[in-house]
């Protein structure tokens, strides 16, 4: 049994000792390209030193141990400003899918490449007409010939959107429609697609902070081998839903570590008066409640092996706390976000603008409240 506190101490000591090698070569925020390169570099150093493999199963090249070891690593990197937690924690929404649903030999081949930074992957879920209502997705996959049960090749046609880092990615975890158009969650199949396959076109989208983090991805007669199917035929909904526990535990904890770092940076420069005290105090209060909630969620996951609809509460808390934190920056450093062209201004502006999406991505604030009302408060159907 690994003692988490000892592990954390050992990890931080190592990161401290190797700080110069790990530190970004640019002043934050840097460009998205800077941050992607930094993430790959950090992963590669940590992989060589054996840290990246901790908490991952041995059958995919990991060193075993509880998944919380991964969470501690991501949080330590975020707390030290070594990687962008949004980019780094993508492994938590991608690797477990492959481990749980890909053929074992495929998982053993590709997961180490993701962990070491040799490859980047993306998640092809959302579509222009399937945002909050993911089960209405239409991107179509059909057997190249013959019966779906025996087909050796599948042909994909359609479009994805809001695909983060698609232009950097080597592979994509893709949800497709394989049942009738109205089959909803019963007719979805997941595939693991090489992004260099002919017929795939990536068109990056400019976000309101000027970055090209996500993209539209077009599929025109893209052929994928049947052994790249993840899970069962028409079992893609289970694949999509399996991501939730990782996204709502480890990813959130890493985000929270990052938000504490940002609040730290704010209190270093904020005015020392009572208005500022109320504003930073309130952000701190929200971050604390969120951290306490996320901690309890992760211990429950570790004990029971599962978490569900109750994590919509974590999601509401993380989105609210993130926006409150950046609102605090705007209110306490007038002109910093709006007018300041220094490196600090660029960082706060970019992150402030990005924080506006916290109540949108990963399930909107409204969808979370619908889930809380229906599943946790048992208010019945709203129809």
């Amino acid at each position, binding site marked *: 049994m690994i003692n988490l506190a000892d592990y954390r101490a050992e990890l931080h000591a190592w990161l401290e000792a190797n700080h110069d090698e790990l530190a970004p070569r640019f002043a934050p925020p840097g460009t998205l390209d800077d941050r992607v390169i930094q993430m790959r570099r950090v992963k590669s150093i940590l992989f060589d030193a054996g840290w990246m493999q901790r908490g991952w199963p041995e059958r995919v090249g990991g060193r075993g141990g509880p998944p919380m070891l991964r969470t501690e690593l991501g949080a330590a990197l975020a707390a030290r400003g070594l990687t962008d937690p949004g980019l780094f924690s993508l492994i938590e929404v991608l690797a477990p899918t492959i481990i749980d649903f890909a053929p074992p030999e495929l998982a053993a081949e590709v997961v180490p490449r993701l962990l070491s930074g040799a490859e980047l992957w993306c998640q092809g879920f959302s579509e222009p007409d399937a945002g909050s209502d993911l089960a209405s997705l239409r991107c179509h996959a059909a057997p190249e010939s013959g019966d779906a049960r025996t087909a050796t090749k599948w042909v994909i046609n359609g479009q994805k959107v809001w695909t983060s880092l698609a232009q950097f990615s080597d592979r994509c975890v893709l949800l497709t429609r394989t049942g009738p158009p109205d089959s909803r969650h019963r007719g979805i199949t997941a595939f693991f697609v090489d992004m260099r396959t002919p017929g795939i076109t990536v068109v990056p989208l400019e976000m309101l902070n000027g970055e090209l983090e996500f993209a539209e991805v077009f599929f025109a007669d893209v052929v994928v081998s049947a052994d790249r199917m993840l899970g069962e035929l028409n079992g893609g909904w289970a694949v999509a839903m399996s991501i939730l526990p990782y996204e709502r535990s480890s990813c959130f904890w890493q985000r929270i570590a990052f938000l504490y770092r940002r609040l730290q940076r704010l209190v270093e420069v904020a005015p020392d008066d*009572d208005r500022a*005290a*109320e504003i930073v105090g309130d952000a701190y209060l929200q971050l604390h409640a969120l951290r306490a909630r996320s901690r309890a969620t992760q211990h429950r996951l570790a004990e029971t092996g599962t978490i569900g609809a109750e994590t919509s*509460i974590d999601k509401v808390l993380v989105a609210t706390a993130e926006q409150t934190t950046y609102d605090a920056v705007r209110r306490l450093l007038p002109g910093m976000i709006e007018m300041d062209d220094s490196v600090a201004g660029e960082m706060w502006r970019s992150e402030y603008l990005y924080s506006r999406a916290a109540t949108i991505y990963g399930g909107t604030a409204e969808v979370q409240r619908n889930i809380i*009302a229906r599943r946790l*408060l048992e*208010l*019945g159907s709203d129809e």
Partner: protein
Amino acid sequence: MIDTHERAVMEETVRGAIADALATAREGANIDAVLAQLGWLKMLDDEPDDAIDIVFRALGAANATATALDDVVASALGQKPRADLAVLLPRFAAWDPPGRIDADDLQAEGLATGRAATAREMLVVCGTESEPWSVIASTTVADVQAVRGVDPDAGLRAVRVHGSAAGATRLDPAVWPKAVALGRRAVAYQIAGAGRTMLDLARTHALERVQFGRPIARFQAVRHRLADALVAVEALEAALTAAREEPNPDTAALAKAVAGRTAHTVARHCQQVLAGIGFTTEHSFHRFLMRVLAFEGIFGSADAIVLDIGRRLLAERRVPTLIEL
């Protein structure tokens, strides 16, 4: 620490006994007697964390009036709790020691539970946070006035003490913050219990009340208010767990501040969902609203605590994380 099963039994017993007492008494049920019969002081001595959690949550959930807070604070101050020892609490919204000593003269002003009206003695902490003294004063030197305020049923008293400081003993400076921390947790549990009941009342109403030909629970605007109320209650539960697992003045202060914020959020949403009926004295909601308004200020309101914490973050220019995985 007691196990999950023991805890469930204990919770059920405490809640049941309080509910019975409230149901049978015409008015002014003696909840202190109920708690005494359940062995509250022994529970507090044996398993303080569980005892405070279970009892104060139950008091809040039933909107029952008791004086058990005196026992919690007295024990944290190193006194053996007893029914004839009241404790002088800080003034509303504050948490500094309520008394001061000038030569041999003791003067104090603060709030107290209903025990102040009957107890023989009152424990008064004096001085500053860094140099606290404790005095056990006779209640004959205390002017004890019932506070009507927003919640006459809360049994709170406004107390002024003017007497001799003879017998004052020096307290370890760590003791007062510890007593405040434990008192804060107790009140925060009480608010958590009250918050759950308010939410239950509003939820039941939303499912039963029909307008435009359907239960109002089907309207998204109503559902989202109740969802936000639940988020607030769960944030408080998390902060309380953190305060229990990492017990110190900071985690307790944050739990109490979250409790204050939660109280107002839950009350606002539930009152709106209850609409007309929630604005009357016919429906029990109003009792919970009044009680959380009154108790939000015991050992510091959320606003006062947040200001205090914020000042410290800015003075030290440091943001501690307080809890780890």
